[in-house]
């Protein structure tokens, strides 16, 4: 009988299916500790209600995704650094004011205390003698040498190898003294080991990609690795061998992966989490309405700016010549700057949540005072008229009539490209287009995905090839601005065929005086002398209008008011001072 058979088959199929599927449940949990059956659903807030007797408690930090690795030399991801900083420590580190403080070193090397040679090519590091790794083995000079070997070797997979390109040798003089020799002065010698010191027990320095350390790190910091359930949470536990008695005060740091921002907000409001990293600025009203949550912000290093292409786009030549038909003329560039009301953008559009910036030297020890341009559309119009840009056909957009480079009849129309999914950037672009329309400049805004805008030379990305009119995005310098400044402003760093597309001088700006100042700053060990050079350079950069500086973002995190003793820093990840945090019950 067919029908009977079909029922039977179906029946067996369903049984087999349910068996196979129910088998998945226990299988998935089999590696976990033995289950304790509970009648009532357990609470998700163990410290407060269930009363797990952990006097120092647990801080839950909400993150949107997993870190890629916990090895500082394999990633540049900001997220990873927020986590590994609690485990892996550097020799010295800038505090919240941008002043260097010793961490694993006994003191900060300077020319004054004799740890830096007069020409800056030899730096002696004196290490603390009371430091042990979390497995209680002593921290010594051998670990610093090991870190150098692993980090400087590009074949090891290190993404930081070029930071060590000027290093000739790193030698342990004794167990607690390391001498670093440079082929030439390295302006970031204090940051040489800013990503932290790795334990020499981690593995073969040439085979870093395959280290077990990368997902189970060991360090000297206040916390040590406990467990990592991919996509779910990553737990760090207080390091019992941490050098400072009575610290850290918190027993566990849990980085919980919650991809949905809405859900992260709910968890903060319910008290199930204590820190939400980098909440969007759209959430500020939420925090202001909640007495148990506090937003702690500091100025960030990222500065939003316009990059004006000084060279002809789409001519197959990424070099600085021939000049851009419109933007090649300095007067047009200045008129554009005068035609944008940056103060209004800062105060009315961004509601004062950003700070106006006039040069790349906007923060920290190298902050320079470069006066802002006034908003002056009348002068801007006059400058454009004088530069040969007149609206004769009455369509509101100027055309070239005797302009410096553009053939007569060329419309004063420019395209501006930013990246998508960033509301404030998009709004800023549209407001600027409106403002420039007032002075007869047509600005066409078209944004692209971030990975397209920041594409590589090999991808023939427009930014690298010089095929754009105006770009707008945010970038910035760290505690040592030298590399960033050289990348973006040195004339030899214009990406061309000759240099294989290296460098970030995307505006194709050439200024011999600026080149001199940049190179001189790169040879100056004394920070005060260097700052004077930077400030001179800052004015020249501003007056060139190759980049038009807009504003600087604020960065920070939302904290439960139960947390105290913490200090958000522009110069370091969230957990840089985690040993000082305390958690109220």
């Amino acid at each position, binding site marked *: 009988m067919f029908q009977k058979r079909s029922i039977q088959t179906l029946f067996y199929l369903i049984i087999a299916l349910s068996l196979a599927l129910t088998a998945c449940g226990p299988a998935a949990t089999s590696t976990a500790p033995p*289950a304790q059956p509970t009648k009532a659903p357990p609470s*998700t807030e163990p410290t407060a209600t269930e009363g*797990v007797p952990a006097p120092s408690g647990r801080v839950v930090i909400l993150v949107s995704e997993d870190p890629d690795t916990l090895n500082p030399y394999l990633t540049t991801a900001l997220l990873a650094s927020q986590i590994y900083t609690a485990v892996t420590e550097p020799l010295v580190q800038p505090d919240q004011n941008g002043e260097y403080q010793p961490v694993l070193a006994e003191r900060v090397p300077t020319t004054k205390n004799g740890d830096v040679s007069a020409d800056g090519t030899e730096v002696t590091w004196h290490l603390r003698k009371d430091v042990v790794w979390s497995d209680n083995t002593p921290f010594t000079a051998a670990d610093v040498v090991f870190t150098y070997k692993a980090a400087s070797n*590009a074949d090891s997979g290190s993404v930081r190898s070029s930071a060590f390109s000027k290093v000739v040798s790193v030698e342990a003089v004794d167990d607690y003294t390391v001498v670093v020799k440079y082929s030439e002065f390295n302006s970031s010698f204090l940051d040489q080991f800013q990503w932290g010191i790795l334990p020499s027990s981690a593995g073969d320095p040439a085979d870093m990609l395959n280290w077990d350390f990368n997902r189970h790190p060991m360090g000297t910091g206040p916390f040590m690795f406990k467990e990592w359930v991919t996509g779910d949470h990553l737990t760090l536990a207080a390091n019992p061998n941490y050098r400072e008695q009575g610290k850290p005060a918190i027993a566990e740091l849990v980085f919980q992966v919650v991809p949905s921002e809405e859900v992260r907000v709910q968890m903060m409001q319910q008290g199930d989490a204590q820190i939400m990293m980098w909440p969007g600025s759209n959430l500020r009203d939420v925090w202001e309405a909640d007495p148990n949550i506090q937003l702690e912000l500091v100025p960030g290093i990222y500065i939003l700016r316009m990059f004006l292409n000084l060279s002809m786009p789409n001519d197959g030549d990424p070099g600085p010549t021939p000049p851009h038909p419109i933007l090649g003329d300095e007067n047009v560039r200045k008129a554009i700057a005068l035609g944008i009301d940056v103060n209004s953008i800062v105060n009315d559009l961004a509601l004062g949540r950003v700070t106006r910036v006039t040069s790349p030297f906007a923060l920290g020890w190298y902050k320079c005072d470069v006066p802002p341009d006034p908003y002056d559309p009348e002068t801007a119009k006059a400058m454009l008229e004088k530069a040969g840009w007149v609206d004769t056909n009455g369509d509101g957009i100027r055309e070239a009539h005797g302009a410096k480079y553009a053939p007569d009849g060329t419309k004063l129309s420019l395209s501006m490209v930013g990246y998508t999914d960033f509301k404030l950037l998009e709004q800023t672009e549209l407001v600027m287009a409106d403002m420039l329309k007032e002075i007869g400049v047509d600005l066409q805004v078209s944004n692209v995905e971030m990975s397209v805008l920041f594409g590589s030379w090999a991808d023939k990305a427009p930014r690298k090839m010089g095929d754009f009119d105006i770009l707008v995005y945010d970038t910035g310098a760290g505690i040592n601005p030298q590399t960033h400044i050289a990348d973006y402003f040195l004339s030899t760093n214009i990406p061309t065929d000759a240099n294989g597309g290296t460098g970030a001088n995307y505006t194709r700006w050439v200024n011999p005086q600026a080149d001199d100042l940049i190179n001189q700053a790169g040879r100056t060990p004394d920070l005060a002398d260097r700052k004077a050079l930077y400030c001179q350079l800052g004015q020249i950069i501003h007056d060139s209008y190759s980049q038009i500086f807009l504003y600087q973002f604020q960065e920070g995190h939302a904290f439960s008011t139960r947390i105290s003793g913490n200090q958000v820093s522009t110069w370091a990840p969230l957990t840089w001072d985690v040993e000082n945090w305390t958690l109220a019950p």
Partner: protein
Amino acid sequence: MGNYLARRSLQAIPLLIIISMVVFALLQATPGGPLARFENDPTINEADLKALRQKYGLDDPIPVRYLKWVGSLVRLDFGNSYITQQPVLEIIGERLPNTLRLMATAFIVTLLLSIPIGIISAIKQYSIFDHVVTSIAFAGQSIPIFWFGLLLIIVFYSKLKSPWSGGPLFPAGGIYSLDQQGNFWDGLWHMFLPITMLSLAWISWYTRFLRSSMLETINQDYIRTARAKGLREIWTILKHAFPNAVIPLITLIALDLPTLFAGAVYTETIFSWPGMGRLFFQSAMRRDYPVLMAVVMITAVLIVFSNLLADFVYALVDPRIRYG
């Protein structure tokens, strides 16, 4: 039959090869790349990038990279993730049990609920029950699923409290509470909301499908014959109508089987569930080609073979269908 199966399986091989070539080429054609995340990083320069490109073989022409990928695939090696450096199979192995647990449970709940509901709606066509079910089914098909998920969280996590612990009635997401890793009951508690979200949409489709399939069956001549010879209505439905109405469901189930592997991006994102859907989405955003290729290819294989399975099971249960 065996002959037929062998032929169909062999035919699948060139199909899968073409799929792999198209997907590989499409992935490489998307702008950006696995190293794009370093491009705007002020702390990393061109020399570092160059070394990395070489390390990952990104400078090779696309056909060469494809052949290398196929070469290691033949040895069942999907390579290592560009982002985390873990072997791809290890990464999938971490996520797959989570996805299977969630999706399979939701699937069983769907079948257990939608079969009786669909059949009753058909038998009691145009009754109040049928109207209510139909309305809910249409609502379930039209509600944006992420919105429904957020609504569940706001109501069952933020607003409603548990009478036992005073904490939230249901958790906001995750597989287990932090202190209850591996606890079966805690896991069940965490599955409740995501399964509700997943099954609503599924049940909506399945009940509609079963209802129309059952309606078609109960109007057949042999059902009338069964009734005419005096068989009680309940037996007519259970013995004669039900088995035949359910047969077309096999196709639907077989076509949904690959989803059990691929996961559900929205549900996993809203409920912080570390499953395959989120892995795929995250890998796509990070342009992690080895992981992407592996997930796409395994899904493709599953789709091809579950179609084959559907045909095979169909022939087993329905003697009218023969393959030769």
